């Protein structure tokens, strides 16, 4: 059975099912990260003292990672725009770049983490590090998840372009919405953990 409303919009919602689905999912994600940000506020305001992020964490590396993730958001949206222009070759280049930038982000994060472990700094060391590892860890899982979905659309999932290009374009748009959300979360995580 075919999934309904992947190409044409439902008259009552004015949207494809995929679009409303991804937004409802992102709404639940807002609450998930919101709970962790609330924990951050509660733990920080309840602490007698709090370290500035830059005394523990590596700000230059995180700044590079911010730039990497923002750039990957642009390549993601360009991948979608390429499909809208019927340029499949260009789509592949932008999508490939988006995944590659995701890899760069994770590699930099790996170096950050291993440096912390090397210095004997673990999630159990103090509240700051507990929040740091939980928030960035969950965020990294999201980056990884987004990369898997994007890799699917670059690889086996791209077959759909030949049979139903509009559906494929909508799928890439939805995958992009998730990717931009991951970028958006990092935009808030970066100053919260590293700069304040």
């Amino acid at each position: 059975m075919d999934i309904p409303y992947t190409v044409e919009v439902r008259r009552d919602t004015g949207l494809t099912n995929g679009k409303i689905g991804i937004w409802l999912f992102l709404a639940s994600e807002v609450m998930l990260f919101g709970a962790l940000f609330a924990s951050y506020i509660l733990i920080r305001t309840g602490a007698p003292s709090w370290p500035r992020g830059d005394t523990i964490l590596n700000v230059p590396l995180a700044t590079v990672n911010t730039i990497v993730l923002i750039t990957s958001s642009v390549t993601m949206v360009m991948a979608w725009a390429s499909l809208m222009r019927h340029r499949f070759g260009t789509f592949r280049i932008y999508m490939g770049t988006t995944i590659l930038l995701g890899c760069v982000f994770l590699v930099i994060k790996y170096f950050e983490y291993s440096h912390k472990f090397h210095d004997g700094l673990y999630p159990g060391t103090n509240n700051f590090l507990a929040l740091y590892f939980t928030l960035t860890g969950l965020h990294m899982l999201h980056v990884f998840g987004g990369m898997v979905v994007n890799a699917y659309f670059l690889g086996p999932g791209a077959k759909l372009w030949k049979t139903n290009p509009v559906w494929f374009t909508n799928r890439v748009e939805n995958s992009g919405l998730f990717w931009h959300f991951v970028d958006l979360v990092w935009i808030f995580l970066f100053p919260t953990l590293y700069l304040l």
Partner: protein
Amino acid sequence: MTSDHAAGVASEHATGITSDHAADIDRHVKIYISVFVALMVLTIVTVAISRFHLPVPIAVAVALLVATIKGSLVACYFMHLISEKKLILAVLVLTAVFFVALLTLPAVTHSNGYWIH
């Protein structure tokens, strides 16, 4: 952005790919590039401000302001919220209400001293 353009984008989303909207996409791409530049500049700004070691309340306010501007740019343009259907905006408004409650509730209980004493 004009309402004409917004309507164009909306219909584009509704019908998917149509070559008639190629010019619209070209305009989108220009916007994406501008947003990209703005995000880069704001990233540098927020890092630069943090080097001044402002008092914590001011530093938090400034960092949150810059992050909110950056986040809004991503949501409005990369995620197309600026031209999105009302239903999605309604879902997000509802989410925002609960999100704010989630963030302020612990802060309120804390200011009563309930949690620390």
